């Protein structure tokens, strides 16, 4: 048992790692940028907007720097790019022409500009050579200068917690960046001015060259090849459990926000498990007891229909008929429309008992909406399981021994049928969380599901990433629990050789 548990726990990180890889692949290989929003207007025109998610180009760049989106995906060979490539690209960007002299479209130009901008950090010496090369045309030198500035400006540390040392680094970076951006101020630099700028920039470069690795050695190149990639950044962020901050508030950590909401979501996903278990077993055994009677058939049909009802039909129906219009008898003022508790001002005044009643009244409808589906499915499962067990030899033996039918139903059939239910329920932990997403959105309960949904609507990259991971981890734990419950309830099964 212990060996199995250990093996299972060892497998958990492997599985989680694979899920990480799949998540990573989805983010990076899917067309489009995770932070750019594109939508089709009612007139049919396609609109791409990154300013929706980020106030300005500057912030957008900052975001990409922070999450390593400016880096290549798997390996980084940018320090090895040749001088001729740099010259050619600068030429292309200045004249907006393809290699075959065809005019570039805006989209292609943007893509090349972005790629070259991302690469510029690794091309600093080459760019500097072009800037100070007096033979090349002024426009190209100016273009090279722009990319030199882009490559030279490093991202600062941002977030709620910045240490003293980081603050010092930030100050240095800010000084450098201010200097570099100053170089760009005059858009129409003359030859002489450009020469002055080139000298100033060269001086700056010779100062920072030693501390910043703008011209890496062969060894550094190898380390850059592997470490300065999106994959590496992504994994290191996950391994250090750095899930970043909320998009619209740098002082709110994602993990903190999630844990704050977890109590709502756990209430909404664990309570159904317990209620479902009790109800399923009761109902399933009843149906198996009166097998093939009218009760069995009608309940079976009813449960099938319940199973087929989509949650996004049932939840609005409950809101409208029960909470809002009181069409169902005895529902006057009993069920509030939304939220997890009454407003804070009212809630603070209540006694503990009143608070409990308040919460119960608030979550009754959401719970019902979350539960009915798994209730129906699992009751049918319990019925099948009970009928299956009733055919076993040991039940026949028990009957032959003369044990009362009711006690056979409880202790022989019931216990063994419950194994199936527990397994099914435990492995649905992740699913329940997904199901509560719609319910939380509709009932305006500020839980994990609604948090995630809002993140998707607002393109909050960090939260989306974290939620997908947390959801996966939860369902993995669910599977583990299911296996453990299986061994605990069914001693016949040896998991030692099951794996």
């Amino acid at each position: 048992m212990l060996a199995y548990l250990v093996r299972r726990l060892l497998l958990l990180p492997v599985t989680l790692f694979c899920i990480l890889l799949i998540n990573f692949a989805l983010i990076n290989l899917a067309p489009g940028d995770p932070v750019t929003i594109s939508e089709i207007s009612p007139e049919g025109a396609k609109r791409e907007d990154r300013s929706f998610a980020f106030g300005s180009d500057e912030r957008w760049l900052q975001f990409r720097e922070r999450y390593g989106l400016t880096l290549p995906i798997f390996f980084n060979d940018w320090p090895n790019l040749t001088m001729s490539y740099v010259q050619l690209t600068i030429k292309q960007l200045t004249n907006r022409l393809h290699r075959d002299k065809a005019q570039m479209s805006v989209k292609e130009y943007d893509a090349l500009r972005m790629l070259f901008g991302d690469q510029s950090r690794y091309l600093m010496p080459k760019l500097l050579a072009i800037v100070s090369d007096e033979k090349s045309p002024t426009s190209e030198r100016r273009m090279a200068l722009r990319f030199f500035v882009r490559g030279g400006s490093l991202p600062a540390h941002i977030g709620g917690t910045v240490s003293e040392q980081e603050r010092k680094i930030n100050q240095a970076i800010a000084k450098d960046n201010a200097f570099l951006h100053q170089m760009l101020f005059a858009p129409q630099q003359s030859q002489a001015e450009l020469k002055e700028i080139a000298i100033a920039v060269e001086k700056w470069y010779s100062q920072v060259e030693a501390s910043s690795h703008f011209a890496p050695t062969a060894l550094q190149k190898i380390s850059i090849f592997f470490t300065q990639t999106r994959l590496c950044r992504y994994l290191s962020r996950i391994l250090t459990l750095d899930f970043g901050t909320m998009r619209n508030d740098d002082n709110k950590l994602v993990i903190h926000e999630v844990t704050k909401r977890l109590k709502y979501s756990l209430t909404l996903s664990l309570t159904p498990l317990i209620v479902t278990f009790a109800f399923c077993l009761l109902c399933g055994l009843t149906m198996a007891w009166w097998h093939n009677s009218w009760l069995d058939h009608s309940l079976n049909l009813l449960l099938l229909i319940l199973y087929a009802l989509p949650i996004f039909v049932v939840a609005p129906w409950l809101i409208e008929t029960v909470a809002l219009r009181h069409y169902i008898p005895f529902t006057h003022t009993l069920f509030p429309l939304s939220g997890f508790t009454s407003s804070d001002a009212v809630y603070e005044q209540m006694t503990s008992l009143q608070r409990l009643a308040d919460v119960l009244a608030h979550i009754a409808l959401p719970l019902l909406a979350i539960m009915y589906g798994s209730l129906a499915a699992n009751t049918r499962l319990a019925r099948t399981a009970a009928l299956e067990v009733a055919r076993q030899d040991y039940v026949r033996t028990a009957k032959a021994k003369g044990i009362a039918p009711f006690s056979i139903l409880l202790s022989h059939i019931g216990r063994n049928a419950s194994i199936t239910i527990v397994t099914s329920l435990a492995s649905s932990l992740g699913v329940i969380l997904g199901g509560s997403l719609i319910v939380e959105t509709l009932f305006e309960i500020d839980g994990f599901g609604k948090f995630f949904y809002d993140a998707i609507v607002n393109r909050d990259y960090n939260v989306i990433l974290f939620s997908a991971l947390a959801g996966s981890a939860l369902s993995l734990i669910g599977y583990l629990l299911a296996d453990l419950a299986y061994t605990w309830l069914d001693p016949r099964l040896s998991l030692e050789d099951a794996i």
Partner: protein
Amino acid sequence: MISSPLPETWHQAIWRRFKGYPTGMLGLFTVFLFAAVGIYAPLLASSNPIAILYDGTWYFPLFRYLFYGEFYTKNIDLFFNILMFTTPIALLATLLQRKHPFCALCLAIIAAVAQLIFFAFVLAFPLKSPAFNIKNTPHTLEQRSLSWPSILQHLSTYAHLNLIIHDITSEKQDKAIRSEIGARADEWLPTLWQLKQDYQKNSPLLQEQRLWLNEERKKIGFIAMPLLRPFHWEDDAAGSEQLNQRLPWWELTRSNRKDFVAALCFGVRISLVVGFLTAALVLVLAIPIGAIAGYFGGMTDIVVCRFMEIWEAMPAFFMLLFVVAIAQSKSIFLVIAIIGLFSWTGFARYLRGEMLKQRSLPYVEACHALGLNHSRIIFSHLLPNAIPPLISLIPFAIMGAISSEAGLSFLGLGEEQSCSWGILMDEGRNSFPSQSYLLWPAASLLTILLIAIALIGDALRDAIDPQK
């Protein structure tokens, strides 16, 4: 010679047992009804009349526009429009199956091939607009003048008919709405007819058009409009929220001012496509993977099982949201692909178990002894025996797919400008509960369809495996 009746085949036995379940038959009947509504939706709701007698000549605008890609802008609609003609052939094939199996097979193949060829043809060579009279269209801008007779010249008869019919239907709609809400109609946003009248006041050209329309409307002898609504689901049908609150449900318009009932009819098509394509995708993925894992066993089996475990651990609905949010193209086919990708493991697991059971049976050993290669054993001996139990899972997979698609659309992540029931419900939800009348029709239809499919699935499972 005594001719004995042929023994019952497996399919016939299933069908015989299936017929014994009234709930299953009810479900099947309902699904067929929905399918019929979906396939023949243009006959129920379209702005083109089925037949019209105009100036002594018969015209059939509905059929003239049936394959025109700018009237039916979604490819799904074009596909179903072709299906309107191939479905009867397929039905005939089913009827003939008992008595003339060969004929039936030929007909079925003809129907399928014709469907695919015509669809490819319509996509590859888009039809030209029936509305333009190319011959009379002046080539240079100077020759064009904005007088009504000159405009008429380069419009074809179909364009004339469109104008006239639009005039008639908008007047009818206006009358219907007025009779429904009485004199206060003018207070709320105007109907199409009202808008037209307003524009005419300031435009001499439109006044000229009015005179012409009045003249032409007298020439129409007979008109057979689509059965339910005189609006195509992509057409502007005016209307407003205030108006909606006082209208019966068949006169409603969506929040983008398009006809509601027409969208409901065409929405069946989306659900059908989602259901069938997802099921197909799931089978295509699950059958090879499950078969290989189960047949070879050992290391292959372990690797495949581990992979499936990892794949299952990803919460499907979260991943759906995640992918749709990242991929950013809210296409229905992307949604189908994702739903398919995240729901094949159940099938593969089942098939693997079945293959493991079958491969130790004597007939497989006999195959090995005969020296057959692996692919032959898998495809012609094992799979035909292992797949049948899988069939009972298909209705539930279809159900899950339809419901997932509607759920995604309901959360605002479906294809924009679509008539999927999920989108219709989303529109109802956006102003919930004040506008919930937009929510319930689509919600009830969806629920009925899902329940019907579940009933079929349940009956089918009992029919395939009568022991349970």
